[in-house]
């Protein structure tokens, strides 16, 4: 059984989503950019007033790099859950696609690319805010957008897996509350992971968000060194690749059996 996607097929799926998104641009902008920007300004300026500096940089700069990564995670995850589920189930969009030469792997790959594009869109919004606040200090910050694409790809697969096994929208509460939110709290978005018990460190290194935050922070801020960029990229890529295969397998099982 083949899992190799056709790039042309995936592009057609991606373009379909883009066409719809253009029509729904403003609500998407509020959700994917407005919300994280509010968190950044609210927490960064509010808490930052009391905290001042963290890990040798302003709290606002620390938080901006963390939120850039977490907004990419959230955007890709929510697209991979709610939107993909809607197209797979209630709207039967995939049934219509499967009546054409498109195969499940083309659809899943196209959706993952789309999740990644939206993740990068959301990260780009935060990037502009950070730039306006003068928080971006490293020329390597230009790599933030391609990095956000990789973060989006890493989180798209697991989210689509959830869609493939969900029986209703409420099922996603488990993934959000049991996986995404705890990850958000321990991956170094709001405070450095060094402050967590050392025994936790190896476990935290398994989480994609830990690597996403490390990568973004290192790219954005002059005062933070990129400690292990290739490990970050490798872990995120593994989530991407395995996510794709498992998601394709699960979606196929759901739609074709």
């Amino acid at each position, binding site marked *: 059984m083949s899992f190799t996607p056709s790039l042309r097929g995936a592009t*057609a*799926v991606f373009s379909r989503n883009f066409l719809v998104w253009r029509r729904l641009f403003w609500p998407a902008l509020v959700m994917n950019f407005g919300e994280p920007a509010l968190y950044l300004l609210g927490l960064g300026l509010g808490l930052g007033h009391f905290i001042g500096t963290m890990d040798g940089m302003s709290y606002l700069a620390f938080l901006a790099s963390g939120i850039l990564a977490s907004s990419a995670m959230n955007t890709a995850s929510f697209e991979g859950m709610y939107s993909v589920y809607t197209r797979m189930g209630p709207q039967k969009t995939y*049934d*219509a696609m*499967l009546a054409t030469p498109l195969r499940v792997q083309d659809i899943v790959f196209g959706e993952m690319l789309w999740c990644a594009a939206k993740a990068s869109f959301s990260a780009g919004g935060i990037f502009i805010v950070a730039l306006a606040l003068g928080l971006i200090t490293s020329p390597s910050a230009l790599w933030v957008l391609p990095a956000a694409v990789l973060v989006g790809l890493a989180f798209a697969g697991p989210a689509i897996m959830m869609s493939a096994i969900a029986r209703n929208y409420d099922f996603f509460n488990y993934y959000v509350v049991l996986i995404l939110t705890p990850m958000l709290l321990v991956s170094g978005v709001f405070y450095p992971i060094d402050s967590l018990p050392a025994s936790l460190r190896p476990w935290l290194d398994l989480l994609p968000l830990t690597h996403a935050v490390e990568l973004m922070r290192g790219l954005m801020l002059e005062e933070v060194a990129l400690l292990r960029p290739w490990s970050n990229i490798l872990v995120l890529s593994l989530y991407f690749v395995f996510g794709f295969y498992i998601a394709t397998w699960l979606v196929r099982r759901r739609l074709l059996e």
Partner: protein
Amino acid sequence: MSIMSKSSTTSAASPAIIARGLRKLFKHKDIGDTVAVDKLDLNVPRGICFGLLGPNGAGKTTTLRMLLGTMPPSSGSLEILGLTMPDDERRVRAKLGIVPQADNLDPDLSVIQNLRVYASFFGLPRQNLEAHLEQLLAFANLSDRRDHQVESLSGGMKRRLTLARALINTPELVVLDEPTTGLDPQARHTLWNRLEELKAQGTTLLLTTHYMDEAERLCDELVVMDHGRVLDQGSPQALIARHVEPWVIEIRHAAHAAERYTCLNHAGKLEQHGSSLFLYTPDRHHALAQIEALAPTLGALPILLQRPAGLEDVFLRLTGRDLREGA
């Protein structure tokens, strides 16, 4: 080059569908295996409208899904348009048009965008595409709705758009799963008219339906199936001639007193469907005289309807009269 043209001629001469021993088992944890389709053989020649008839749960939808490659058969072999399924399924789907039972138009897109996006799923070249799309809109009688959102269309318009969408790749075979279910009479006639046009152009049609008038009108040949098996196959006229007497007299509201009518068995075959009795007879004048002779024993003459036998009678006789539920 010669090999190319040779292979394309063989594929054009091959039947639209050949199924041999097609079988589908569903495994259930609690009730064991159930057989949805049981060793089905089909041979659908090109250029005709072929009907797949059967009560709910007969295995029609499972059969269609296997033909379309969206459900793997448990065993058996399947060739569509000269290509082997499921190995060549992408090439088969490139030549296939599908009108599914449930509407799956893209609600996020307008009428014309639905067609344009669907064309991109087939990888159709952009050259001349817009002209082709306008032709399809005209065919579906939707030219004045081209920029409307799909949600604002009526049921009949949605069906016509679904048909237009299925024709985007100029398919050799169009598969229609209960295409007129839920449509009003005008919308059904419009759709039938379009399907007849397609057939006249040489497109092969495969149709499932619950409406016997639809099957009788459109199908050149059909199979009646039940419990996953083919019960009989032939043209509507041949099936009618083979299975039922040429005339039917319906005796309305007579089922509760069926025993009073048993003597009519000499004039033909008496059957009960719902609250009516049906007398299938070769000689309706003789049969009517017999019923009238019964009048004194009945009090009043019941309401009688006489008509030539049709496919519906064949269907009822072949598939029995028990009510299907939950299927």
